[in-house]
């Protein structure tokens, strides 16, 4: 068995190893090789400081006493983590955008960079956090005592106190060394994060090792283990529902609100995407941490003598089984849990104390003395932070001494959680509700603090320590509804659930009520909009409008806070960005805002804003500015909308112009084609007329030849005339100069006229008609209509290539229109020609047979357009089929009406 001294040496070696790891990580980061340090796994492991020594040792004791209830402490954070999309993502984004240094800074920054709110949150966090630190000191001390016990030495109070003190001192040294290297609290503490990641692995390994030993080494396997659990005296499920739900809520809320959790989750976060991995990896860590808790508790209760402290089963079970090495590993796990938690908690609290209490007070006292020099605020802040670390650890140690390190301390874990959770309403309200005001937040926080102190914190010191039994029984000054554990006369509740419920209800109620009735300051409204709409990239108002200060004053001031090297770097960068390297930059509102944010990363938003405000002369944002910005944004929006509309209109115009141009080009081409066509058409008959008249002019020919030639000249002249008539007709129709002579008559009569005039006397074409369907009265230019009919019938006669040509004329009425179809039984017109036939001079069949100039259908189309109807080719019929559509039925109906 390992001696106690050996254990001390192991512990010291372990701590030295941690120092080395921290140094190594710091050096790596300083050399710019921080890649591996900034992996999501390190981030996930660093979150595991949630699992403190209280959970490492205490969970087993908790399970031995209350069964499954211990698991609620892990379920809450699991739910928050898997629900990261709701709150954590938002917190991390805001934390990075606003360079938040702590949860107090978050609340202060959200509610108008209020110094007062920062102080309130800091005070709550310190009061709630100190007992928790004391708890860690106790755990480490007790675990030392266990090993001393093995050697037969039973530690007395003096030894316990001494060891607790040494642990506290060691932690203070480590924390000061690695936690205050940079003033910029928003920068990552690489050494510390790496050290706690290593510790996270050690504590997980330790607990899992003990668990595996218990399940497989003692119980003999999972099945036997489950049987032992069932037959054990442990009562897994005996509680009422209110505790189950309240504790899940409490642990989830504390996960967000505890300063140390905020530190690792938000402040130390280097990349939002780490949350993706942590969202499942951290729940997995918690799962593994709690998997073996019940088995260890059951075996501990079985094996160890009655009355053993179940809080130490993780150590005493291996020791009882003679597994010294395992016990030492378990001891290191407990040590890791305690130290990592204490280190991060003290850094977080010290940042809050220095930024929100010490520096504002110091600046206030310094306000009228002109004893400022470069880096003076920096050194004050660093000193304040170091002293705060020592002071907080001293407070924890004192608390441990005063409480006597007994079971009273063990009960304080959840009470401490409840205290921290008082920040929740202000935080969530600030994240999701723009109208939440600073006064509302302050009222809620103070109310919550008061109720928590009264119902949970003060009674936790035991009866008569602060609150006498009489007050517990009868309430303060005899008012019974103010009894600490039965507020408003509701008694019989679990004291913890009672405290959680009332503090949260009253806290939230005050927060909402005061937010509703107060009016936020301009800066508050600005910050509120930036927090709530952190994912929208809308135009934000500038916190600074006028810049009355010179660049030199600003440089001097920022040197006071962040030292000369870094501030000169910032100013140089800005000067380069402004295009004047080597000079001091212009003091623009944007630059002031950037500088303020840089400084806020060191001393917090409130102090940074106040200092800049002092220099600039308070020309901070006003309500009018905010409204002006809103107006401006609206104007810009309207302007851009108008531009958009205008450009759409221009687009349309351009398209119309393009179309017109295309049409004009096409027309010009058509005109050229038309001219060449027409000259060709005119030339052919002219040529024959000229040549035959020349032959006749020569004389010397027989009479019959002369007659034949004169006949040809006559025919050609007729053809020319017809062509010119057609051209004239078409031109008149196309130019809209045609005069229509409206007449009323029967469709049948018109068709009769057309058939008669189409030259069917040679009997080449048979016409099929349905006289009864043709009994329709028309009011239109009947002569023109007949011209169309004649053309269509003549075409059929000319082009129908069937052996026994037949033309069917079919008249149908369809939805207020009359369709007159001319369908022959020939081969029809091929699809590629169907589009062309209505064009001028288009002739599909061979020219010899046609004898026309190809103007007939073009004229038909023009006529029908004038008459308000249409003429179409019907592609689906067997032969060539034309449809004339007349709109005469409507006219008829209209005539009947009048």
């Amino acid at each position, binding site marked *: 068995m390992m001696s106690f001294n050996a254990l001390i040496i192991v512990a010291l070696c372990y701590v030295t190893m941690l120092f080395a790891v921290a140094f190594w990580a710091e050096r790596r980061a300083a050399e710019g090789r921080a890649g591996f340090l900034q992996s999501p796994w390190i981030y996930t492991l660093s979150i595991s400081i949630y699992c403190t020594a209280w959970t490492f040792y205490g969970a087993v004791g908790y399970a031995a006493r209350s069964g499954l209830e211990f698991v609620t402490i892990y*379920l809450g954070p699991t739910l928050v983590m898997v629900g990261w999309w709701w709150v954590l993502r938002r917190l991390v984004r805001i934390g990075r955008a606003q360079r938040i240094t702590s949860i107090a800074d978050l609340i202060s920054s959200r509610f108008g960079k209020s110094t007062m709110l920062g102080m309130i949150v800091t005070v709550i966090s310190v009061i709630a956090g100190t007992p928790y630190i004391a708890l860690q000191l106790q755990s480490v001390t007790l675990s030392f005592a266990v090993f001393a016990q093995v050697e037969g030495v039973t530690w007395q109070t003096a030894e316990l106190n001494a060891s607790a003190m040494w642990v506290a001192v060691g932690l203070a040294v480590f924390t000061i060394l690695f936690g205050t290297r940079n003033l910029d609290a928003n920068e990552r503490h690489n050494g510390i994060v790496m050290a706690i990641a290593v510790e996270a692995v050690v504590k997980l390994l330790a607990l899992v090792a003990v668990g595996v030993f218990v399940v497989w080494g003692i119980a003999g396997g999972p099945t036997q283990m489950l049987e032992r659990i069932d037959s054990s005296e442990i009562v*897994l499920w005996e509680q009422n529902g209110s505790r189950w*739900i309240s504790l899940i809520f409490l642990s989830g809320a504390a996960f967000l609100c505890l300063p140390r959790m905020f530190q690792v989750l938000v402040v130390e976060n280097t990349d939002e995407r780490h949350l993706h991995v942590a969202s*499942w990896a951290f729940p997995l860590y918690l799962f593994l941490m709690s998997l073996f808790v019940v088995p260890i508790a059951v075996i501990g209760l079985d094996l160890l003598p009655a009355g053993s402290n179940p809080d130490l089963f993780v150590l005493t079970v291996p020791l009882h089984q003679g597994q010294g090495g395992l016990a030492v590993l378990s001891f290191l796990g407990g040590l890791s849990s305690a130290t990592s938690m204490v280190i991060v908690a003290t850094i977080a609290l010290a940042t809050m104390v220095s930024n929100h209490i010490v520096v504002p007070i110091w600046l206030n006292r310094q306000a009228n003395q002109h004893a400022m020099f470069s880096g003076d605020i920096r050194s004050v802040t660093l000193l304040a932070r170091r002293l705060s670390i020592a002071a907080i650890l001293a407070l924890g140690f004192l608390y441990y001494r005063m409480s006597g390190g007994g079971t009273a301390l063990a009960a304080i874990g959840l009470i401490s959680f409840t205290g921290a959770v008082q920040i929740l309403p202000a935080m969530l309200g600030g994240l999701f509700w723009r109208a939440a005001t600073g006064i509302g937040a302050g009222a809620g926080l103070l109310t919550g603090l008061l109720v928590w102190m009264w119902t949970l914190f003060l009674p936790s010191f035991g009866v008569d320590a602060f609150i006498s039994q009489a007050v517990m029984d009868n309430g303060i000054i005899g008012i019974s509804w103010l009894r600490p554990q039965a507020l408003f006369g509701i008694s019989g509740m679990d004291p913890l659930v009672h405290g959680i419920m009332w503090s949260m209800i009253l806290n939230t109620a005050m927060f909402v009520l005061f937010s509703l009735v107060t009016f936020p300051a301009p800066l508050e409204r600005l910050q509120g909009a930036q927090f709530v709409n952190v994912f929208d990239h809308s135009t934000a108002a500038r916190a600074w409008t006028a810049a009355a200060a010179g660049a030199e004053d600003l440089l001097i001031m920022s040197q006071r806070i962040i030292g000369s090297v870094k501030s000169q770097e910032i100013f140089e960068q800005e000067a380069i960005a402004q295009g004047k390297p080597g000079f001091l930059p212009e003091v623009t509102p944007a630059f002031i805002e950037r500088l303020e944010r840089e400084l806020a990363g060191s001393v917090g938003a409130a102090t940074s804003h106040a200092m800049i405000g002092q220099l600039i002369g308070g020309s901070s944002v006003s309500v009018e500015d905010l409204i002006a910005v809103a107006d401006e944004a609206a104007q810009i929006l309207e302007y851009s909308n108008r531009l958009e509309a205008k450009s759409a209109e221009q687009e349309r115009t351009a398209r119309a112009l393009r179309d017109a141009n295309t049409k004009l080009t096409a027309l010009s081409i058509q005109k050229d084609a038309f001219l060449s066509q027409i000259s060709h058409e005119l030339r052919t008959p002219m040529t024959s007329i000229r040549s035959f008249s020349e032959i006749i002019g020569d004389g010397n020919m027989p009479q019959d030849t002369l007659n034949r030639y004169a006949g040809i000249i006559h025919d050609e002249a007729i053809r020319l005339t017809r062509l010119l008539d057609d051209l004239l007709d078409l031109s008149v129709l196309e130019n809209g100069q045609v005069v229509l002579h409206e007449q009323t008559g029967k469709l049948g009569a018109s068709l009769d006229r057309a058939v008669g005039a189409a030259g069917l006397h040679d009997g080449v074409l048979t016409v099929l008609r349905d006289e009864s369907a043709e009994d329709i009265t028309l009011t239109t230019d009947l002569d023109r209509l007949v011209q169309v009919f004649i053309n269509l019938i003549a075409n059929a006669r000319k082009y129908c290539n069937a052996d026994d040509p037949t033309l069917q004329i079919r008249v149908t009425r369809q939805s207020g229109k009359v369709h007159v179809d001319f369908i022959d039984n020939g081969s029809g017109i091929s699809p590629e020609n169907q589009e062309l036939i209505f064009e001028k001079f288009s002739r599909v069949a061979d020219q010899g047979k046609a004898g026309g100039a190809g103007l007939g259908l073009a004229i038909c189309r023009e006529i029908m357009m004038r008459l308000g109807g249409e003429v179409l080719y019907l592609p689906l019929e067997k032969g060539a089929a034309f449809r004339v559509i007349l709109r005469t039925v409507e006219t008829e109906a209209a005539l009947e009406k009048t």
Partner: protein
Amino acid sequence: MSGPPKPPIFLQRQNYRQRRVRDAARFLPFLGAILWALPLTWAHDPEAAQIGSAGLIYIFGVWVLLIVLAAFLASRIRADPPPGSAEDPHT
């Protein structure tokens, strides 16, 4: 004046999927809360039979389910591009 430009109502299939993955990530904590609230319906009468190891297995089973679902969603979910970058759809 026509109001501010609205985001498109209908999305491409890929963006549609991504939004549903985000919806699922939003629902997950509620699923966990409901499943873990079920033990409230278990009998807590000391006289009645104890739930024992079955309860233990249930709680831890739900835990595994949540971890697996969260891991699946985390692998499918796309990170928001940092504001102002080229990928940023708002700029």
